[in-house]
């Protein structure tokens, strides 16, 4: 395998050897500016920093995550789902799954929540420049991809062809319906949206079929293409098989891991896969490197 990158390259942007970043676990306060109901159990929150100075300094890269907290319920990890090119706010899309996510779903516009971050590495934007891009998302896995897709579309002329393949269990479960429409209407973006068999509605005009199947039928050209794929682990597994069948090399494919996290900064010992820490070395991984790790994710 030849690759332009050293193993587990793209370390976090603000990490420099020898410079320590102090972490006191104190979150910054953020105000909920808007809430979009995406699906019956997913909401997107638009957040702004309460502190003007913090708001001015804050920067992140697509793929990075944060520790969001509802005071009284605790902290939970979500990716930043908005594009870094859209300044002044961040967005996260949250599936109601437990204590913190459940409480977050009860919050209203104007409420204050906590945020620590950004942490982790990012999608390899530099390597993607000049290449064709294939985005493959499943379910709420579109959240991290939305950040990088938004970034790429705002810098559209720096990339080749853009192909977005997205699927969910049912029409109801598709997130970002407005954006899906916008992407579909663009002439410089190819889109394919699909729902699992049985998940379609009478007026659904997209595909019906599992993401890997639809991918194989669409048969995108592997040449000069970088693939970014996020979704449930089982989908990723079959997507990687399909990519290999189609002639893609997995050293040009990236995905994210979602191991449980507490600290986000390599201390709490929770997120490791072998000697790799998802919070510090990830959450973005090159798929061939992922396959070389112990399969503990």
């Amino acid at each position, binding site marked *: 395998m030849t690759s332009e990158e050293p193993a587990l390259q793209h370390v976090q942007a603000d990490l420099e050897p020898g410079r320590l970043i102090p972490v006191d676990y*104190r979150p910054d*306060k953020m105000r909920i500016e808007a809430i979009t109901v995406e699906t019956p159990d997913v909401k997107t929150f638009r957040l702004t920093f309460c502190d003007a100075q913090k708001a001015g300094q804050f920067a992140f890269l697509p793929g990075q995550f944060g520790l969001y907290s509802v005071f009284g319920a605790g902290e939970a990890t979500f990716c930043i789902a908005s594009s870094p090119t859209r300044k002044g706010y961040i967005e996260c899309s949250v599936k109601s799954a437990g204590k913190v996510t459940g409480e977050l779903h009860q919050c209203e516009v104007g409420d204050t929540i906590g945020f620590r971050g950004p942490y982790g590495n990012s999608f390899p934007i530099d390597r993607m420049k000049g290449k064709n891009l294939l985005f493959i998302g499943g379910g709420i896995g579109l959240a991290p991809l939305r950040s990088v897709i938004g970034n790429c579309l705002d810098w559209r002329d720096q990339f080749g062809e853009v192909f977005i393949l997205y699927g969910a269990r049912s029409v109801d479960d598709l997130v970002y319906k407005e954006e899906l429409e916008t992407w579909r209407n663009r002439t410089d973006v190819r889109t394919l949206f699909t729902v699992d068999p049985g998940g379609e509605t009478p007026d659904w005009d997209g595909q019906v079929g599992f993401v890997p199947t639809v991918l194989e039928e669409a048969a995108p050209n592997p040449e000069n293409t970088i693939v970014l794929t996020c979704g449930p682990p089982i989908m990723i597994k079959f997507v990687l098989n399909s990519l290999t069948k189609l002639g893609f090399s997995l050293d040009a494919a990236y995905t994210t891991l979602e191991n449980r996290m507490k600290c986000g900064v390599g201390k709490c010992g929770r997120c490791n896969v072998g000697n790799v820490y998802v919070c510090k070395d990830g959450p973005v991984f090159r798929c061939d490197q992922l396959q070389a790790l112990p399969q503990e994710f």
Partner: protein
Amino acid sequence: MNDVSETKLYRLEADWLDAALGALERDGVEVLAPVKDEDGSVNLAPVTASSEVATDYLNALIPLKSVFMPRTEVLIEYERAGVGDVEVLPGAAPAGQRVVLGCRPCDARALVMLDSVFNWDYEDVPYRARRDSTTVVSWACMDPGPHCFCTSVGGSPHSAEGSDAVVYLAGSGPALLQVVTAKGAAFVESLGDRAQPAADGTALPEPPELETKFDTGEIKTWLDENFESELWEEVSLRCLGCGACSFLCPTCHCFDIVDESTWKHGERRRNWDSCAFCQFTQHASGHNPRPNQTTRCRQRVMHKFKYFPDRFEQVACVGCGRCAQNCGVGQNLVSILSRIQSEEKP
């Protein structure tokens, strides 16, 4: 470590402990020393008189890490301020100046490992504050216990790693003190005339010998190749997943962060956690990357003897033997490592 320059050795008068406690108390410095509990176990606790100090103990039950990373600590506090808003307050102020007087060298050596983690690109502020404000004076071991294996993991009953000063006690008579760091030198100052530079030619006593139980290099070689091995299932069958071994381990540092609150007021706490627990890695979806005790036992051994060396070039074990001594089912790192050693060298 034994070639410390002569000027860094001091002779302590027999009553040095009283002198130290008196001087430190006058300076407002808290002293934590081994104290025997009613049940016979020894733990580091605040002391003011030398009569409270257990000088002839084997090791504390709760490891030294608790001084720097308490079992539970408040990271932040918050108060509700109007509808939907909160005021975020910093957690408890870090401790004032403290001296740990009489931990064991293995526990002090564990601080070197904890320092690696807590200063790994990100500096853990509460940990660092406690490290900065605490002087660690360990007591060299003259009479190791049956579970001790520090020499098998690169340590020694007389190791000075992680200590600011090491005291070599000789009964209740005069003792020898080896200064290791500037903080250790400051501690000697506080002893006034009870500490005098040792006479020329004074040598440190030879450390007692310990049986070598395994070779960490050979263990690592086996671990590199054997993520998948039947041995993991075999050695984990008895494990209850109680976490005693990791709570009592001086290098285990896994933690949880949880909120505890009433309607108006809340705290975000950091609590010790353990990779032995079944929900440690469980995702919200119910998916668990380490779904059974086999994978969790493997993680603990791998972390200490492969992953940690891979990332920090040291094993995360100091050979204190607490895991072997305190496991309710006779399962522990030493027994597992000895098994691995026999696999490696049949």
